[in-house]
């Protein structure tokens, strides 16, 4: 009975503190999508995520999850600053949190829950580190733990806010590979990032926002010089040459 996941965002405007933080955002995604939300700091990426997650009321417009219930279907990986790192949780503890909806009020985690946690951790290659406190992991490993938590939850939509901040380039690749495999299973993965590096080329679709919608589509089509200037000002064009597509520019030198 599980319907195909999908998100239809239709003319959404969100206000924060009396001002429009986002105006007239419209896009449709899924099933099976790896989507990036790009924009400079303060462009409204987190606001958009909060709206999709149902944490903020919409001033106008609508968000349709194609009949899916948010609870259970959606998993959210907040920015690093929103996690309470004082709380001493092991990797296993964090992933088990994802089983909350499957365990009854007075029940303890059963065999199926433990099995689900194990499979999820194996999938992100962290089963060996299950008893390590999550604070002792690297930025990339922490993100993989949160992905495992979403897997244990059996979520069909995964929202990751600033997923690559504090994650070194090598580890970013590993995260993208796991997310691509989720995409191939029909899940929807939406990632926000302020940083327009090569990683942007790995998304199926990118939504570029700076309080309003600048572009939506496959990266090759979305990253036009105009859009980059809208996002990052005139030096956005440098991004276009040096980061997004380093091999085809006017610079005579070649990358090794």
């Amino acid at each position, binding site marked *: 009975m599980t319907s195909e996941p999908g998100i239809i965002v239709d003319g959404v405007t969100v206000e924060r503190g009396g001002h429009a933080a986002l105006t007239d955002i419209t896009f449709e995604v899924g099933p099976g999508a790896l989507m990036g939300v790009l924009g400079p700091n303060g462009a409204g990426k987190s606001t958009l995520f909060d709206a999709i997650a149902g944490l903020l009321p919409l001033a106008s417009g609508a968000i349709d999850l194609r009949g899916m219930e948010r*609870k259970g279907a959606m998993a959210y990986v907040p920015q690093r600053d929103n996690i309470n790192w*004082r709380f001493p949780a092991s990797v296993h503890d964090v992933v088990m949190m994802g089983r909350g909806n499957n365990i009854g009020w007075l029940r303890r985690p059963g065999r199926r829950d433990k099995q689900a946690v194990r499979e999820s951790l194996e999938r992100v290659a962290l089963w060996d580190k299950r008893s390590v406190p999550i604070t002792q992991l690297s930025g990339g490993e922490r993100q993989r733990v949160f992905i495992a938590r979403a897997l244990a939850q059996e979520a069909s939509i995964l929202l990751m806010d600033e997923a690559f901040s504090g994650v070194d380039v090598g580890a970013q690749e590993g995260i993208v590979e796991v997310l691509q495999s989720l995409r191939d299973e029909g899940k929807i993965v939406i990632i926000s990032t302020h940083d327009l590096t090569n990683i942007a080329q790995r998304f199926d679709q990118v939504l570029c926002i700076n309080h309003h919608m600048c572009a939506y589509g496959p990266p090759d089509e979305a990253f036009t010089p105009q859009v980059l200037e809208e996002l990052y000002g005139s030096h956005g064009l440098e991004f276009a040459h040096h980061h997004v597509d380093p091999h085809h520019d006017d610079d005579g030198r070649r990358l090794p």
Partner: protein
Amino acid sequence: MIDYVVGPFQYGFMARALVVAIIVGVMCPVIGAYVVARGRAFMGDALAHSVLPGMAVGLLATGSALLIAVPVGVGAALLIGYISRRTGSSEDTSIGIVFAGAFALGLVILSSPLYINAFLRLRGGKSPDIEGLLVGEILGVNMQEVYISLGLAALVIAGLYLFHRQLVYTTFDPVGAQVVGIRTRLVEYALLALLALVIVIGIQAAGIVLVMAMLITPAATGYLLARRFVGVMVIGALIGVLSAVAGMYLSFHANMPAGPVMALIATGVFGAVAARGLAAQSARRLRLIATGALGAVAAVRTRWKSG
């Protein structure tokens, strides 16, 4: 030595005090582990001070400060949330307002001639023990208070068990918890209600002013020593019981107020554990510097020889 430990139990009040000391020693750090992780120490202090009017009325009406303090504490927690939502002031500010206002009300009630006269008439000529409320009077608990403490402790354990998963999720990741459908505000209020119950139990031993020392300090020590949340609770409870029982004995033998003694012991344990950690850290640093220096000397020497 044996006489020092066992002797006091020829008095009935000592057995009652021991039971309450153990309950307080366990319950305060167990809920304190959440209070510390969620950064709610000020809230705990505020709730402790806010129950004073309830204790004053309870002492007069029932002879025990406990029962009426419970709804007053829960009410104060709700009021704090309500004020910050309605006026848009920060929660920190609302806590300050409710804390000071309720504590002042309690002091005014306790010192008003009307109250003192009524107390003398209803309570057989005794005057209210204000000092006992402020710094604790564990040797003075009666049987009714022992039963109430046991009942409240059972309620708190049941509540913490019931809300365990929600509490853990919202403490670690409040935003993610909300997205998966956990009603974070309900969980927060449930925790504050349980906290109010524990504070009321704890006040008998450590008093309004110092119940914080039992709530925060042993749990904070637990955080220094344990790697898992359950470990924090267990270590905190061990230190809590040690502090409370030792405070009780010193109060009996040396005729010192129990609350401050418990608080000092808990603080001393924290200090010792923290100092050990710091010492280990600086030893590591010194070793690093020493190896670095030796390495540099060796390098200069080789270069000097070869040059």
